[in-house]
């Protein structure tokens, strides 16, 4: 276990470096210049030149090296940068550093993503178990239908419908901003639906298989009820595929919530990322990608550790 952990942690910087390099190349290949702004504010040419030199926008290789050194903390260790993990200033919002933008947006996106995964797990496992215990039954057909809806309906449709119904019509939830738990409920629910649907299908399939297995038959022979067999014997094994899905899914829920963030005006990191790509705000794009690829690797690691714990045979 310790060896696995150490090995994976050593892998982390290499994976992130690879992601950085690929993103960097792609970002640089996009035509346009982050310092030109057709809508209003155009700094005088001499200031543009000075900024280009300052950020090495005239020299991609220097940018690549310097940004990497600052972002990774190497520059800080060497004493050439005052802060560790300095992701630089945003090129389009010169008053804000990328670190500041991520610090305000990331906790919100993470909260949204985590809440969504919690809902997805609860709903998905419940629906999967109910359906998997009696395949073809009424409950199974109903949950299957719902999961198809959850997977196929785009989130802006579900989101807008929930918004109009529960926030505007019944005034049960506030809209916009993040105040308490209630303000995140609707966006988290919207975001969770496709995940819940997928989890329910994974669990259902696993349950059907497990309930037909030898050990389930043995358990039934012991005199356990159908429910006991399902909960104590079948569920654990049926849950394993969900666990391996959970790592990347949580990362996707936390990063891929752009549409939900837009519909519900949740001030997360998704909007910054998409806008940064459109505006070619390279530092912001790189910063968000770096933070998220690190998170993704760490989530997958956490899932692997849990996997070994749930099913010690894996080790």
């Amino acid at each position: 276990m310790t060896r696995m952990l150490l090995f994976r942690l050593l892998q982390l910087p290499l994976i992130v470096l690879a992601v950085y390099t690929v993103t960097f190349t792609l970002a640089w290949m996009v035509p346009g210049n982050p310092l030109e702004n057709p809508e209003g504010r155009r700094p005088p040419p001499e200031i543009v030149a000075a900024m280009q030199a300052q950020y090495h926008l005239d020299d991609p290789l220097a940018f690549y090296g310097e940004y990497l050194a600052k972002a990774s903390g190497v520059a800080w260790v060497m004493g050439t940068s005052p802060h560790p993990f300095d992701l630089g200033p945003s090129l389009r919002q010169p008053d804000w550093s990328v670190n500041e933008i991520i610090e305000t947006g990331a906790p919100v996106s993470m909260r949204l993503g985590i809440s969504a995964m919690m809902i997805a797990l609860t709903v998905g496992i419940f629906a999967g178990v109910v359906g998997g215990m009696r395949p073809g039954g009424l409950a199974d057909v109903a949950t299957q239908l719902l999961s198809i809806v959850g997977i196929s309906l785009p989130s802006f449709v579900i989101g807008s419908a929930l918004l109009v119904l529960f926030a505007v019509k019944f005034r049960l939830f506030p809209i916009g901003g993040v105040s308490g738990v209630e303000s995140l409920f609707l966006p988290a629910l919207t975001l969770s639906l496709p995940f819940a649907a997928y989890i329910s299908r994974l669990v259902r399939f696993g349950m059907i298989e497990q309930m037909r297995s030898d050990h389930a038959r043995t358990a039934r022979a012991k005199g356990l009820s159908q429910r006991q067999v399902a909960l104590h014997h079948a569920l654990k094994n049926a849950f394993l595929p969900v666990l391996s899905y959970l790592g990347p899914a949580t990362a996707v829920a936390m990063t891929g919530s752009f549409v939900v963030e837009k519909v519900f005006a949740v001030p997360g990191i998704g909007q910054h990322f998409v806008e940064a790509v459109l505006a070619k705000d390279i530092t912001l794009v790189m910063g968000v990608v770096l933070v998220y690829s690190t998170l993704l690797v760490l989530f997958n690691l956490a899932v692997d550790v849990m996997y070994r714990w749930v099913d010690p045979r894996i080790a």
Partner: protein
Amino acid sequence: MGSLSVGREFLGGGSYASVVKVLAPFLLLLIALIATTYLDPPLPRADLVIVERSDCFTLDPQRMSYQHEIRRGETIYEGLVALNPKDCSIKPGVAQRWSTSSDGLVWTFNLRRDAKWSNGDLVTTKDFVYAWRRALLPDTAADYSGFFFEIEGAEAFFHWRAKALAEFNARNSVAPTTAEDARALWETTESRFRDFVGIRALDEFTLEVRLRRPLPYFLDLCAFAPFSPVHRASVEQWTHLDARTGRMEQSHGWTKPPHLISNGPYVPTVWRYKRDMRLEKNAYYWDAARVPSQSVEVRVIENPNTQVLAFGAGGVDWLPDVGPEYKTEMLAQRRLFETRHAETIHADQARGMELDECIRTLPSPMFGERRDIRALNAYGTDFFSFNCRPTTPNGAPNPFHQVGVRRAFAMAADKQALIDRVTRLGERVATTLVPPGSIQGYPLVEGLPFDATRARAELANAGWVDRDNDGFVDDRDGKRFPTVDLLYSTASPRYQNLALALRDMWRRELGVPVEVRGKDAKLYKEDVKKGNFSIARGGWYGDYGDPSTFLELQRSTDGNNDRGYKNPAFDAMLDDAQRETDPDRRLERLAECERFLFAQEVPLLPICSYVTVYMYDPSRLHGIREHPRLEQHFDEFERIDAAEAEASP
């Protein structure tokens, strides 16, 4: 595969162990959720909640540029004087009194002794000198540096410094410059500013400003956010001289809470970019007793759809910019409400009440009506520019160089029809550029009316008549009127719809071939700047309370004269008017300039005054002002709770 785990359970593995294991990821997620909530705790509701479409780029007053940013600036900072939002007259700010010399060139401001920064420091003349110097340094890259050029020596100082920095850079590329070099250049800069620029602190509380020409609207400029003071000591902690470029570099940490020190009615205490900003009443503000609301939350919601839904769900007091999808339909509901109560409203308004006050006394709207949306006339005009250059970009003679052709096109446009059928926001028809009633003492100027018959006569006078009865006008040689290239930006459907409607009007009334050409915002702007159009969509919002903010656009040399309109007679008229020292006579002469422009020359075709659409419930929110400059000051806003509102209708 199953036998192993079953075996373990037979050997005494807890029967609930598997359930616990299934629950474990759930618990981990819960812990993570609690941790992120702890890292980012929610704030209690503020007294006022305002929703804006975009966040401020900066809270550095000298670098502010956008309307919502300037509005925030005027809430956080206080300049020498301030505008009274009700009628846009000047009221004292940090300066208690002021006087001007008889030639109008020297202004002396006496600062109040009780004006304080939010950390308790006194606001002194040094803060103003420092702030205004920042605005005049190219290093700051301030959008409104040009406004300060009216101060004696300021423009020369700005260009001198820009040139010195360019030379410094050139030197650096030959041999590396040192911190010493940058320091020496900075010291020269400081002494040049002291010696040549007409901004002087006579003592801690007396400021003298010398202008290069009399400027009757100088006080209006002083009320503008970029003229606000900054707390020198706190800003200087974030600046340093760059040895490589010689520039005074600043990092923007001082513009964010908790470092930001301000002198206005409110201080920002939380600012989360593109998320929200929280303003708390500044306890040290000299007039704090007047400010009704303790705290203001400005939330950013970019999606216009969600904005309106958020307002509809309650909890938002003011939406200053309603998205185009909703405006027309909801405004129609407002009109229904007003129509039903028209008599009462007219009677109340005749007694001098503002519309909001009248609405407040009326019973709640019925089904299908609403009172929480309102279109207010703004300080801007929507227009289409004629390309007045003698030739088109490909060298052919340009018919719009002829005054008669421009007049014909202007009179053939039925603006009321455009407003009723295309824009549908109930705007006021405009025949001139300065919005009526926006500047005290400025007379009403009438431009050309809609008159299709006269329009055709003007076109015929200019030599364009349908000689071959093919439905299109031709010149004397029988050559058809060149196809009019009508350019618009695709940034909003409004421009496309207006362009299409105008095309049909001109084809129908004048018999000219018109083709519309939509371009995205950037390419549209490039084409406009290059003069690559016959008629192009335009629009202008005034910057300060003087007609010249609109009229100077037509000056031959003005940077925003997209029409290429060059008329020395007009330039001379404008100069003469600007030289007039008597304020009333000056406004009269500026009105003559405008009359000359729009009754005779028509370099552009005004369509309507812009409106800004707000959402707020007048029975809940007090303090919204209807003066076209739409100076809305948060420190005058007050939310009346529903119970109180019911009790005192």
